[in-house]
């Protein structure tokens, strides 16, 4: 009860968007070892969502405000949204849900537009190495990582729930319902969320204005989680089902009148069950077991009968994966611990795209980590080994033969933390990571090259954090210079025959940048104001081919300058948020010439929310709450494109009404 009250208080104190990650590992908080308590590196950015009164509906919108993150957004409610972190491609950015990677062996890209913030407690970004105890091996292996941690229900009564309705522009209607129930140490959460949107919005199309067509979406998510706790451990199981049907509006190009841009549709069905069991066996030794089984199905159809310009594809993909991870942590002496994590994964893809290559992949990932952690000085070293065994069919004269291919890589990393004064913290890291070639790179789209090696990223970075608090004021600043080098970048190029493309490990990119963030907060009874400035400079130069005339140019879609300003203000039950995101000039090609210039854009969103206490319900300790608000996105109706050919919506509105009991 006390713990709950503390967390509730913490949530209440935090201004929207700004609660720091709870630094201590909550599970280990009961034990005395400092090495179990302190992580070596803090997340670069993190948001505690239940504390945010105007949390966006999609994880992609949360990430848009993180320094150093570029969200590649194809526009619209159902449009693909992927993230690049510090110019590392989205394939290098691991997305972890409760420590288990959400992966896609087919194209290594995870559509963040599909992740609702519903039921999430925390979204955090790690540029270097996340260094807590009991991580899965895959958490050590990805270049940069976005962690989505689900909320553990907090119940003051035997059960509780929340009903929410979001709706607004583009005919968007998004109801959700969540219900929690506790039986002793076990809590059940059941939730459901639906979404429909017609995806129609006006956009400038060359010399005229058109309405975006075929961007509608319908989706339904059903989810259930069980959380259990015992004296020295906890466990959780989550069952997840998602189905959607959507249209892809296609790039805006010159098109003969009478021919639509696109009639492409995609239906998805995703199912997974995942769980974990953490146990402290002694005060020195703990284990964490995690598992996942996923079954994903996609049906993609270009509908040539509706669009005479469409190439006639009607393709089905089914991906299945199984995953098991065991992490062990042993404290050798007070500040010193050793962790060993081993993950096993199997991916299978069946498809009628191309010929039946039917790739199967078994991946072993093992990580040995050692950490030293005092309160003001901490260090960690990790070494990850990843081996991947692929089996696939290749066409040979006279039939198909089964082939095997093995790839492996060592990925070391080193992290340091030093806090010489209470107001100053310094993190530093160096890390080499690899990403495996995806099934698409290797075997599909008439351009596979099964001899690809993993793409490597070498990252170094320093985080300098300043903190100061006095009276009602508190300040935080972060300066993070970094350098990244990407080698053996997998690039699609045509072969001697221009009609057959291939994938080659020929790209090299050198990235140098700095992230700056300053945050000032003022808090006095009933009042809170929080202002955050963010600026990001990144120079990402193509160093693939010294003979090329684009050698040394900025790579496509990476702005040299980007940043933003957020203002959050709260007054009693009211909260107001202003957010401005700025992206500087970019080029759509490595040729940095005026023909391929993409103009800078600045987009501002505002929101206003009010929380109200409602009349008490029978036999309830807590009063139910009603939270209602409105969000205006792209307030100044700025016309812009994140990805060339995919116009973003102009000014749009979203209403939220939420009742929790």
């Amino acid at each position, binding site marked *: 009860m006390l713990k709950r009250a503390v967390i509730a208080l913490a949530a209440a104190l935090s201004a929207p968007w700004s609660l720091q990650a709870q630094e201590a590992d909550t599970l280990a908080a009961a034990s005395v070892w400092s090495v179990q308590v302190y992580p070596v590196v803090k997340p670069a950015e993190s948001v505690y969502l239940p504390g945010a009164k105007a949390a966006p509906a999609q994880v992609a919108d949360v990430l848009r405000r993180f320094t150093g993150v570029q969200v590649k957004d194809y526009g619209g409610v159902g449009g693909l949204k992927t993230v690049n972190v510090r110019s590392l491609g989205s394939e290098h950015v691991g997305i972890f849900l409760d420590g288990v990677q959400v992966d896609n062996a087919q194209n290594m890209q995870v559509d963040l537009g599909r992740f609702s913030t519903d039921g999430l407690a925390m979204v955090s970004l790690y540029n270097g190495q996340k260094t807590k105890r009991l991580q899965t091996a895959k958490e050590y292996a990805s270049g940069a990582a976005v962690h989505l941690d689900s909320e553990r229900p907090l119940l003051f009564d035997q059960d509780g729930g929340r009903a929410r309705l979001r709706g607004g522009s583009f005919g968007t209607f998004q109801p959700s319902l969540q219900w929690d129930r506790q039986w002793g140490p076990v809590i059940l959460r059941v939730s459901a969320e639906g979404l429909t949107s017609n995806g129609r919005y006006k956009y400038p199309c060359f010399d005229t204005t058109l309405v975006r067509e075929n961007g509608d979406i319908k989706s339904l998510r059903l989810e259930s989680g069980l959380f259990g706790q015992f004296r020295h451990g906890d466990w959780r199981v989550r069952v997840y089902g998602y189905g959607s049907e959507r249209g892809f509006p*296609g790039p805006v190009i010159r*098109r003969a009148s009478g021919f639509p841009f696109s009639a492409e549709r995609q239906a998805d069905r995703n199912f997974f069950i995942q769980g974990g069991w953490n146990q402290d066996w002694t005060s020195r030794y703990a284990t964490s077991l995690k598992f996942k089984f996923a079954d994903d199905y996609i049906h993609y159809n270009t509908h040539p009968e509706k669009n005479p310009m469409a190439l006639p594809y009607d393709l089905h993909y089914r991906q299945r994966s199984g995953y098991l991870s065991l992490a062990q942590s042993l404290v050798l002496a007070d500040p010193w611990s050793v962790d060993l994590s081993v993950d096993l994964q199997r991916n299978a893809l069946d498809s009628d795209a191309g010929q039946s290559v039917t790739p199967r992949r078994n991946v072993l990932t093992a990580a040995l980590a050692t950490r030293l952690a005092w309160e003001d000085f901490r260090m960690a070293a990790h070494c990850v080994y990843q081996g991947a065994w692929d089996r696939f069919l290749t066409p040979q004269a006279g039939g198909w033969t089964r082939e095997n291919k093995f790839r492996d890589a060592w990925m070391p990393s080193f992290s340091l933390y030093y806090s010489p004064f209470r107001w100053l913290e310094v993190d530093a890291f160096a890390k080499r990571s690899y990403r495996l070639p995806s099934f698409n790179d290797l075997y599909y789209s008439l351009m596979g090259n099964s001899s690809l090696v993993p793409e490597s990223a070498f990252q170094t970075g320093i985080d300098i954090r300043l903190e100061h608090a006095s009276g009602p004021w508190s300040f935080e600043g972060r300066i993070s210079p970094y350098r990244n080098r990407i080698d053996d970048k997998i690039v699609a190029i045509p072969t001697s025959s221009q009609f057959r493309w291939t994938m080659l490990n020929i790209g090299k990119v050198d990235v140098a940048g700095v992230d700056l963030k300053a945050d000032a907060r003022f808090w006095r009874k009933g009042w809170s104001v929080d202002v955050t400035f963010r600026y990001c400079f990144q120079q990402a130069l193509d160093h693939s081919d010294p003979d090329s005339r684009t050698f040394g140019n900025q790579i496509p879609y990476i702005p040299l300058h980007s940043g933003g300003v957020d203002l959050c203000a709260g007054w009693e039950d009211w909260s107001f948020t202003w957010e401005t995101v700025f992206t500087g000039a970019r080029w759509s090609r490595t040729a940095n010439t005026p023909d391929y210039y993409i103009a800078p854009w600045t987009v501002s969103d505002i929101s206003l929310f009010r929380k109200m206490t409602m009349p008490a319900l029978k036999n309830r300790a807590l009063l139910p709450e009603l939270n209602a608000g409105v969000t205006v996105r792209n307030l100044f109706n700025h016309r812009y494109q994140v990805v060339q050919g995919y116009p973003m919506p102009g000014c749009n509105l979203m209403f939220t009404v939420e009742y929790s009991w």
Partner: protein
Amino acid sequence: MKKATLLLLCGALAFCACRKDPVPEPPSKDADLTGQKVDVSGFPESARKLFVLNEGGMGANNATLDFLRFSDGNYVTGAFKKMNPGMGAGLGDVGNDVAVQGDDLWIVVNNSGLVEVVSAKDETEIAAIAVPTPRNVAFDDQYAYVTSWAGAYATGSYDENGYYTITDSKNPKGQVYRIDLKTKKVAGSVEVGYQPEGIACHAGRLYVANSGGISSQLPPDYAYDNTLSIIDTKSFKVTETLPVQVNLKNVYADGQGNIYVTTLGNFWDVHSGLYLIRPGQGNAVSKVADYVSVSTLLGDTVYCIGTETEFDWSATSHVYQSWSVQGGNKKNWTLNVSAKVLYGLYALDSETFFVSDAGNYFDPGTVSCYYKGARRWSVDAGVCPGHFALY
């Protein structure tokens, strides 16, 4: 002897054609456009410009038209947009073919579903004709003939405003659309094989190369087409469907009664190559040679450059071999090109060749001029320069 007479006659005709025009032409509207200056000394005076069509990237709407002006050696890029400033969308998405017909320049803009007709004199728009997924164009005196992939996936018809309506959605075969040269309107279509590509017109017959490039990726057969459709232009009907080899690409009529077809092969056990069809001998098919990456027709000679290592997907540089064909016989011809991705070839005369390099397909490529086997110059073009037409 007969051939020599014919050549002489052609020469005389050309000479007459030039002499017939004693008053100097008024300066063209595009005379102010300038670009990179290159050496054009020794280029034929009978021609004014060499057009270069840059395909652009699919979905990027960046097909562009360049030209080299022979009078002053200016290589002008993006000429369509410069001469049609009111058209914000530019030329469109994926230029696939370009050809001169009289004083008109026909540009096939594949993914825009348009056949764009501009003045060859000054690149200003004359007409834009909607054709679903158009690929290549050929002409006779009355019509332009455009091959189309997807028109048949959803066969439709045009109303009097040129608006296209789907009538049949299940037929995966391609079409050849016929466009009246005078009215610039579609005047019927005829079904051919799967994903037709190149087309040539000779002696009242159209020869259409069916590739099956999309069928090869689709269930149930995953098979390329291997046929040449022969169409009688009078009845506008397919008279014969002739098996040649898998994945047909370009068709050339050499004016001597021979038809040449290039094939792309299947990328793993059938090489690309050049085939000869003799309409005078009951359409007998014979193979001339393997390995064709790019090819072009000059007079009665087809010039080809091929890559021996075409099945080596991981090769980062290629060894090219060049050769030519005249009268059905393979001849020695050498052009030592250095290109990252050889994308287009054009012969101005038997000693002057233009070679385009698509580079990485993503950034702008280059066009190079080779004279007597040596590279004379290179200029920056647009993305994927690949098609040439002389005016």
